[in-house]
């Protein structure tokens, strides 16, 4: 038996949302009532699935031309790096992305929002990060949409991200928001993250260097996954 790998670091206080966040009504019946049982990491937590062979399917990095037609809305380029907390790139990890269209409607059977579907927009992206941990998508800026959390509540424009990282412990599903969106101030999902600086890491930065002239506006959204702890594995 060779040396065991290191465990992963615990998040800092306030850096992650709680399970129960009363302003987000759906947490009321879904948040556990009991405290979670602390688990020292074993091989189960420090290992995780690899998609580097491409078995999750081919990359889909241009969401604006799913077929012959072109999606409606404002074209944006979203570029970012997936890093760990020590600043190391997370290579060949699977990034899955999904979003509503420019009118604020998801291609989903239970999305009843009275806004048009766009036949040329599915809102599905997928990519493996490069050796530098980079990803790049060309898509459409998603619209805001109403939801039933409270009367006349609207979600800010956002893109959903699913990232695996190297281990079961690094698995992350999150949302990317846009700078200057006035709906952020009242959004209970965004504001569920207690720490202001941590919350702001969910907002992409407009980056003119990423824009393509006469074509699409550029945004940067880096994603930081858990880094290693200094401690060895548990039981």
């Amino acid at each position, binding site marked *: 038996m060779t040396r065991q790998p290191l465990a992963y670091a615990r998040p800092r206080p306030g850096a992650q949302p709680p399970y129960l966040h009363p302003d987000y009504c759906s947490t009321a019946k879904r948040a556990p009532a009991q405290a979670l049982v602390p688990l020292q990491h074993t091989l189960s937590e420090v290992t995780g699935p690899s998609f580097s062979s491409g078995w999750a399917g081919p990359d889909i990095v241009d969401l604006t031309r799913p077929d012959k037609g072109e999606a409606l809305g404002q074209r944006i380029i979203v570029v970012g790096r997936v890093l760990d907390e020590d600043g190391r790139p997370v290579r060949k990890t699977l990034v899955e992305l999904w979003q509503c269209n420019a009118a604020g409607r998801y291609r989903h059977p239970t999305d009843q929002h009275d806004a048009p579907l766009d036949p040329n927009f599915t809102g599905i992206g997928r990519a493996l990060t490069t050796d530098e941990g980079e990803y790049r998508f060309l898509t459409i800026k998603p619209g805001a949409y109403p939801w039933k959390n409270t009367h006349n509540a609207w979600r800010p424009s956002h893109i959903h991200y699913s990232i695996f990282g190297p281990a079961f412990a690094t698995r992350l599903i999150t949302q990317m928001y846009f700078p200057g969106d006035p709906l952020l101030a009242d959004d209970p999902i965004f504001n569920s993250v207690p720490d202001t600086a941590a919350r702001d890491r969910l907002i992409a930065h407009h980056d003119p260097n990423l824009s393509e002239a006469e074509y699409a506006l550029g945004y940067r959204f880096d994603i930081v*996954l858990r880094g290693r702890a200094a401690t060895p594995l548990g039981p």
Partner: protein
Amino acid sequence: MHAGTPSQTIGPFFHFALDQPDWSDLTTNAPPGERIVIVGQVLDGDRAPVDDALLEVWQANAEGKYDHLEDPQTDKRVDPRFRGFGRALTDAQGRYRFTTIRPGRFLGRNGALLAPHINVAIFARGLLKQLVTRIYFADEPANKTDPVLTEIADSTARRTLLALRHNAGSPAAYGFDIVLQGANETVFFDI
């Protein structure tokens, strides 16, 4: 030092993007080992079915080896026919189903063998970050000495981690319900 990106809910509208129907069967490449089926229901604090959950499983192969470069066990082999990862979505009744193989035991830090288990991550609307639990097998003698199970003093809580066999035939079918809140609330781990 870079600071970690916070988690946010998967929301209610992910099926069109994340559903990969093949991924709920981990045995499509006919890996060695005993084929088993795990079925269950995800329920909320009102015992209402959670019909918009996404479950992911991660497990060792039949020998107890993870398909991962950092698994240090040199006496066991990765099997290219078994990736160890699965994903399933709950249906309108909150039900899910995985077909997989029974995982083997593997060594913990102190040289003790851990009881076979399947790691589960649960994502859903109303969950701002994933919940993590483990599926152990109620008919597994090694549970008696497993350091995680034996640390859970409350037997009612411990039982929520034990999948019960439903049948006598083959493949073995196990039931594992996930109760997010309230009576018989599943034990969730802080990893």
